[in-house]
Each structure stands twice: as structure tokens, then as C-alpha cells.
């Protein structure tokens, strides 16, 4: 019965209370955990990786050859990033990442996944009709560009390296990092020309 259903917020409180009573969790440790993922881990890390790859050809080559080591050199390591593979977007091929079985996602570089990535419709459909799904998400992949989908079905985690937008030749690494979006690093968006982004 719907009126008998316990809302998740109340279930969470009940579970937390039970585990604290048994000494199995410490609320202060939980607070620290939540704060870390709210403040310190997020797509900003991935944006730094991308900006470095755009400005340093040697780093870019390393990143594409050994994503784990190149990313670790910038200080981004941890759970859900044990083995990283970076996929380069080009004019010929467009990569898009999903996890059909859960919502596996490269936490150290992108943080926790956004709702569209966890959405059952995305997980079900992007392996079957990626071009249609990307169009629904606002990205029209040109007809001549091949689509490659990557289902994160084991412990490998993927990051896509977006194409550097036009009009960014003189920009610093920090300015470039500010242009990079989470969605472009999963492959459901591209990064528009500089200047068009802010609007």
C-alpha cells in the first residue's frame, strides 16, 4: 500500500541509527565521506586532465597509452579509477561510455555519476541506439562519424578526451579546464567554440 511505504529518507535514518548503536559506523566518518565527495572529487579533476592533454602533446600521448599512470601523475587516484582508459574523440569516431549493469563511473576524475548516467533509460538504450540517444541528449553526431560505445562491464573505467574547440588557441590551461564539461568527458556532449559556452 502506498500510504504504508517508508520513504527513503526515513529508511536511511533508521539504518544509520541501527548501525551507530551497534558501533558499526561513526557519524563523523560519514560526514567526512559526504563532504569529500561534495567538495573534493568531481569533474573538475577530469577537466584538468583534458586541459593538460590539449596543451601538452607529450602528456596527451602518455594519457592515451597509459591513462592510469598519466592521470595519477596529476594526483587523481582512488576507488573506481584503478585502471583508466582514455578514448580520444576525433572527426572520424565518437566514443560514448555507459555501464549497463550498474552505473560504474570513474570517480577520481569525474566524481559521482549524474542522474542522466544512472537513468535506466540511458543504460538500456545507449548500447542499442546510440545515435538516437545522443540526439535526444542534445548531441547530433554527423552521419559520417562512427559511433563506438563502451560498456564498463568490469573494473576498467573510461574517460573520453573531447576535441579541443575552435577559438581557444591563446588560452591557458586553467582557462581551457573551465570550458570542459562532465558530459563531454563521458561522450554525450561536445565542447562548443570558446565564447559560445557561457551562453
Amino acid at each position, binding site marked *: 500500500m502506498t500510504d504504508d511505504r*517508508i*520513504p*527513503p*529518507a*526515513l529508511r*536511511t*535514518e*533508521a*539504518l*544509520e*541509527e*541501527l548501525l551507530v548503536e*551497534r558501533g*558499526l*559506523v561513526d557519524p563523523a*566518518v*560519514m*560526514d567526512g*565521506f*559526504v563532504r569529500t*565527495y*561534495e567538495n573534493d572529487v*568531481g569533474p573538475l579533476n577530469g577537466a584538468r586532465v583534458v586541459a593538460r592533454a590539449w596543451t601538452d602533446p607529450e602528456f596527451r600521448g602518455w594519457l592515451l597509452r597509459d591513462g592510469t599512470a598519466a592521470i595519477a601523475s596529476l594526483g587523481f587516484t582512488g576507488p573506481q579509477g*584503478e*585502471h583508466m*582508459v582514455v578514448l580520444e574523440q576525433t572527426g572520424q569516431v565518437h566514443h560514448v561510455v555507459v555501464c*549497463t*549493469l*550498474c*552505473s560504474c563511473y570513474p570517480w577520481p576524475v569525474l566524481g*559521482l555519476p*549524474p*542522474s*542522466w548516467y*544512472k*537513468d*535506466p*533509460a*540511458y543504460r*538500456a*538504450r545507449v*548500447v*542499442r541506439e546510440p*545515435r538516437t540517444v545522443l540526439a*535526444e*541528449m*542534445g548531441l547530433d553526431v554527423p552521419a559520417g562519424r562512427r*559511433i*563506438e*560505445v563502451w*560498456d*564498463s*562491464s*568490469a*573494473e*576498467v573505467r573510461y574517460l573520453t578526451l573531447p576535441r579541443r574547440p575552435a577559438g581557444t588557441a591563446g588560452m591557458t590551461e586553467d582557462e581551457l579546464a573551465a570550458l570542459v564539461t*562532465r*558530459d563531454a568527458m563521458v561522450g*554525450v*556532449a561536445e565542447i562548443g567554440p570558446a565564447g559560445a559556452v557561457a551562453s
Partner: protein
Amino acid sequence: MDPSDLGGRPGLGPVLPPSRVEPEPPFGRPWEGRAFALTVLTMGRISGRNLDAFRYALSRLDRAAYFDDGYYGRWLNAAELMLTDSALLAPGAVDARARRRRGEDVTEPPVPEPARPDYAPTGPGSLRTLDRPPRFGPGDPVRVLTRRPCAGTGPFKVPGYLRGRAGTVVAVRPPHVLPDTHAVFAGEHPQHVHTVAFGSAELWGPGAEEATVHADLFEIHLEPR
């Protein structure tokens, strides 16, 4: 039916355009952050950081427990399932406590005798090393098994839409622990992992949208063709 195995499942409607939700904070509501932390700490303290056991718990939820309260709702339910499996909580304990918190007069079940799995990982995380070489290499034609190849209980960690399908190995990844046994605390049995490419027509039939789908598959789930 495993509610978590969603690849190719019809009838789920339109996707969520990112522009409607971005920029999005990690936790939309405070309880989601608490559920996240509780689950991660539950896995770390109680199951020895066995992420495969957590994913297996997710796949054993019923449809409502999996879908109705979203991502962190299913995390919460899977954490509770793991805790009742190992008798750290009695079945119904969370429900009873929640009802008492909202003023209902219910009796809580007695605290059970814990029956935690006898388990310790051989190393951190999921990656391991193996002395034997990988069975397949880039370019090798393979087919995915349709059934779980090992005895015992536990999951068959292959997305349903790939079972029985023909593909080509494109990369060999570092060995990982095998979820089929690891998820039920029956050993790590590390496996080489192969990234396999599948043509969309092989997966969905001749009318499929043109694309290549890659998945990371454990060596034991592949056979040569």
C-alpha cells in the same frame, strides 16, 4: 529477473537530457549522501570491501526496491540486504525502526547472532596479477558463453545482451578478481579481462543502428570461434 541487467531492455522511455539537470550536485537530497556513506562504510567494515558482493546484492533486489527510489534508494536497499545476509541486522529491523521513528507502535526484532562471511581480500581493490598468459589477444575472434561456467552459487557477470554473441578482442586489460565467485565470498579466482568489440547487427539484428559496442569480459566467459 535481474533488475540491474538493463542493456537493450525496451520500454524505458526517453533518456534524460543532461541540460535539464546539469550542473548537478553529487547528492540531490541530504539522505542520498547519508545512504552513500552508509553503504560504502558498510562494504568496508562489514564485507571486507567486497564490491562484487554489493553489486550482487543490487541484482537480487526486487523491481520496486531497485527502481522506486532511484540510485541511492537501491544502494540503501542493497546495503540492508548485505547486512541481513550476514546477520548484522535482523530481517525487518530497518522497517521496524523506521516505523517507530514515525510514531508507530511496533516491536523491533531481536538482534541476531552475526554470521559474517569468513573473508579477507588478498590485496586492495579489484586488480590482481597472474602468472599465466592471457588466452586471447587483440584480433582474436571470440564468442561469449551463454551460461555461468563455474559451479556454485553466485552471479554470471556478463550483460544479458552479450551472451552467446560473437565479437573480436581489441585489448587485454589487467587481471581482475572474478565476480562470479568473489560476490559470494567463494574466492577471488583472478581472470584476464578482454575488451571485446561487437557489431550492432550481431547484437540487435540487421536493422540495428550502425555502431560498435565494446565490453570488458572475463576470460572464463569467452570461448574461441
